[in-house]
């Protein structure tokens, strides 16, 4: 099942992982060390983050480095901007409606 981005970032450990790899790409082993977690636990978080495309793997020799995918985060922000814009439009419409209602009352 494809993960949704909200679920991915709802977890504090995954947010910490994102914050860390936004600065520098890391291998799962280094992540496990930094967070004092088992390799299995790290793999589970990586899987979730990877499935919603928040991180990207890159192979370097025998190691896999995970990078932060800023583009995905941006897509999400663009979508929110659109949602905000729709509300703004609706509220401006409501201003007009209220103004008419007030005039009719008088």
């Amino acid at each position, binding site marked *: 099942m494809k993960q949704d981005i909200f679920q991915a970032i709802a977890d504090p450990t995954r947010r910490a992982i994102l914050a860390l790899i936004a600065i520098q790409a890391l291998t799962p082993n280094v992540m496990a060390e930094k967070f004092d977690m088992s390799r299995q636990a790290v793999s589970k978080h990586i899987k979730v983050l990877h499935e919603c495309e928040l991180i990207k793997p890159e192979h370097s020799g025998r190691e896999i480095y995970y990078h932060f995918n800023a583009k995905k985060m941006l897509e999400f922000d663009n979508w929110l901007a659109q*949602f905000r814009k729709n509300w703004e439009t609706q509220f401006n*419409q409501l201003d007009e409606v209220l103004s008419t*209602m007030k005039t009719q009352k008088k």
Partner: protein
Amino acid sequence: MNKDLLFDFTVDKAARRIFITREFDAEHSLVWDAFTRQEILDQWSAPAPMRCKTKYMDFKVGGRRFYAMISPDGQERWVLQEYTSITPKTNFKLYNSFADEAENPELPGSEWDYNFSEQNGITKVYITVYNESLERMERLADGFRIGFTMMLTNLEELLATLSKKQ
């Protein structure tokens, strides 16, 4: 329209919540009516060029509003809302979900919490939206985008027709 009226939109991605605050230059009871009465809701609750048509609305706890957002080319997107809590003039809550024409909801939906307060003739509305799923919200935005794209396409066609006539 007073440009000084507050509009605030913040998102807590981690908590999957959106907070919307807006002030209106009208008395409390008028704003409450605008959010809770069918004939007024239909006048503003879809962003232009979309329009809104309520099939029925029963504003009471357990009651429902079933409405369509209609795009300029006539496409209908149905929404089913169920009122879960009402404190007259100050607060109401609803569960919002997309639906088909036969009122079958597409779950999961989202929880909406509306709060109203007045100070010096200005009424403040504070809304919290809690989403179980981002995918669902993305579809909502897509619906609007389709509406806007249709409008632009119509305009393009119109411009093409006009330039041919010249």
